[in-house]
C-alpha cells in the first residue's frame, strides 16, 4: 500500500518552473532513493513534501490524506520527519535536549508553563533510548555544537527518529562525511530501515544503490527514470548521464 503518493506536483517560482508534474509513489516500509544532478529539484520536492514550499498545483497524499500546502508543523505532526542538507540542530542544547524536544510526548506538553523539564526523568529516558539507537549514548550531555561532524549527522537522524515518524526524509545525509562516516551512516540506516518508510536524497551513488529498494531520478524538475537499482543501472538515460558512471 502506498504511504506517500505524489501526483502532478508542480512548483513555479515566478517564471521558473522548478518541479513539473512530478509523480512519485512510496509504499509503506520502502527505502526510496531520489537522485539527480544539482539544481534538479530534489530538495524542492522534499520541501513540498514537508510543507516548506507550497506546490503551485498537485497533490501529496500521506496514507490517503492530501497534505499538500499544509504548514511544516502540521505535516510534522502527521508523521513526516526530515533532516536537512545544511545541518539544522539546536546548537546550544545538549544532544539529549535536541532529541527531547523532538519527542511527541514533549510536543504534547509544549504550552505547559508550570512544570519543569529537568525533573521529568521519563522524557530523558526516551531521549536516551533514541540516542542509543544512533550510537550517541556517550554524548548525551554534550552540547550539540561541540560534537564532531559525523556525530552531528547522527544526531540529526536521532532528532528525526525521536518524532516517531511514519516517513523519514533524509536530505543528502552523507554530505560532508568522510568514508568512515559514510560507512557508519550506512550501518545506522541499515539497522533502522526495517522500522520506517524512508526517502533519501543522495549524491553518493554507491551509498544510494546499496540501500534503496527503488530509486527515482529527477532532472530539470521531472522524474526521468525510476526503478530498482538493478533496473536503473541498465536504464538508457542513466547510462548516458554522468550519474551512470557512478551507478
Amino acid at each position, binding site marked *: 500500500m502506498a504511504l506517500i503518493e505524489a501526483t502532478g506536483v508542480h512548483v513555479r517560482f515566478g517564471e521558473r518552473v522548478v518541479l513539473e508534474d512530478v509523480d512519485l509513489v512510496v509504499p509503506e516500509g520502502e527505502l526510496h532513493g531520489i537522485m539527480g544532478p544539482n539544481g534538479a529539484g530534489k530538495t524542492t520536492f522534499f520541501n513540498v513534501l*514537508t*510543507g*516548506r514550499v507550497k506546490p503551485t498545483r498537485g497533490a501529496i497524499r500521506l496514507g490517503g490524506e492530501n497534505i499538500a500546502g499544509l*504548514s*511544516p*508543523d*502540521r505535516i*510534522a*505532526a502527521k508523521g513526516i*520527519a*526530515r533532516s*536537512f542538507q545544511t545541518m*539544522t*540542530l*539546536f*546548537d*546550544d*542544547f*545538549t544532544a*539529549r*535536549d535536541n532529541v*527531547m*524536544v*523532538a519527542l*511527541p510526548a*514533549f*510536543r504534547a*506538553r*509544549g*504550552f*505547559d*508553563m*508550570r*512544570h*519543569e*523539564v*529537568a*525533573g521529568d526523568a521519563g522524557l*530523558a529516558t526516551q531521549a536516551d533510548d533514541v540516542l542509543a539507537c544512533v550510537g550517541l549514548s556517550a554524548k548525551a550531555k554534550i552540547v550539540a555544537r561541540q560534537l564532531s561532524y559525523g556525530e552531528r549527522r547522527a544526531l540529526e537522524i536521532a*532528532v528525526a527518529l525521536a*518524532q516517531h515518524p511514519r516517513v523519514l526524509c533524509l536530505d543528502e545525509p552523507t554530505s560532508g562525511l568522510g568514508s568512515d562516516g559514510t560507512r557508519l551512516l550506512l550501518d545506522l540506516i541499515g539497522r533502522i530501515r526495517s522500522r520506517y518508510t524512508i526517502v533519501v536524497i543522495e549524491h553518493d551513488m554507491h551509498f544510494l544503490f546499496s540501500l534503496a529498494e527503488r530509486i527515482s531520478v529527477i532532472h530539470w524538475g521531472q522524474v526521468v527514470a525510476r526503478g530498482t537499482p538493478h533496473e536503473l543501472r541498465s536504464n538508457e538515460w542513466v547510462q548516458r548521464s554522468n550519474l551512470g558512471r557512478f551507478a
Partner: protein
Amino acid sequence: MAGDQAARLVTPPMLVLFAVLATVPMWIESVGLFQYLGVEILIWVMYGLAFNLLMGTAGLVSFGHGAYFGIGAYAFGLAQFHLSANLWVGLVVAALAGAIAGLFVAAFISHRRGIYYAFMTIAFGQIFWTIAIKAYRVTGGEDGLLRIPRPPADFGVVSFDLADNRSLYYFVLAIFVIVLVAMWRLVNSPYGRVLAAIRQSETRAAHLGYPVWRYKLVAFAISALVSALAGGLFAMGQRAAFPDVMSVQQSGLIVMMVLVGGGLVSFWGPVIGVVVFIVARDVIGALTFAWMIYFGLLFMLIVLFRPEGIAGIARSLAARWR
C-alpha cells in the same frame, strides 16, 4: 540546560537575592542612596525579566517594548480615576491592558523574523507613543497623567498603607518575588524550552511540529503583560504616567540594560543590568551630567568584546576559578 537547579521552584541564588533585597531599606540611605531607588530597581528588573523572555529566551528583539510599560502605567492611572481607586483593580487592569496590546501587536508580527520583526516592534511602539501624546483628553498628552493615587494594599482583614516609600518597597518586593519565581519557572518549563529552540532555529522547530507563530505570539503577550504590570507599579510609585517611557529612546534603555547584564546567556542578566544601570545613573550621575557617555562606553565595550555581558564574564571567571 537540564540541571538540578533548574528543577527547583526557588533556587539558592534566589533565596540569597530575596534576603539581600529584604534588607535594602535598612541600609540604602546610609550608603548615600534613597528609598525610592530600591522601588525603581525592582520595577525595572521586572520589566527587564519580561523583556528578556523575548530577547534572551526566544531570540525575539523588541525595540518598542516601552510601549507596554507605558500602557500599564496609563492603564493603572486611568483605572484609579475612572473605575475604582483600588490597588488590585489598577494592577489587574494594567496587566490586562498590556496583554491585550501585546496580543494585538503579536498577531501582526509573529509571522516575521529577524530584522523585520524588530522593525515592526518599533513601528507599533511609535504608534502607541503617538497615541499617548495626541490623545490629550485621555492621557494628558505630553504633560501625562498626574496625581495618580497610591491606594493601600487591602487584603480584606488587613490593609497596608503604601504612602511612604519604605512600605511601597516591601509591597513591590512581594510582587517582584512572585514575578521572578514565575519567570524562572516559565523559562525552565517545556514552553520555555520550545522558545529556546525557536531562538536557535525557527525552521527546525516548525519541522518538529511546533506552530512557531503561536509560541511567539504567546511569548510576546506574556512579556507585554509583565511589562505592563511593572508599568502600573511605576505609575503608582511616581504617582504619574508620562509618554516618555514609551519612546524609542526609553525602549532602547531596556535593551542596553539587559545586554550589559548578560541576558543573552543568563536568566540573571536583567537583574544585573538594571542594578548596574540605575546605580551608575545615580552614582556617576551625581558627579557628571554626561554619565550616559560612560554607560554608553561600557555598552560598546561589552557588545564589541564580551557580548555575553556581565553575567557571561562572571560565568567564565567562575569556570576558570574552578
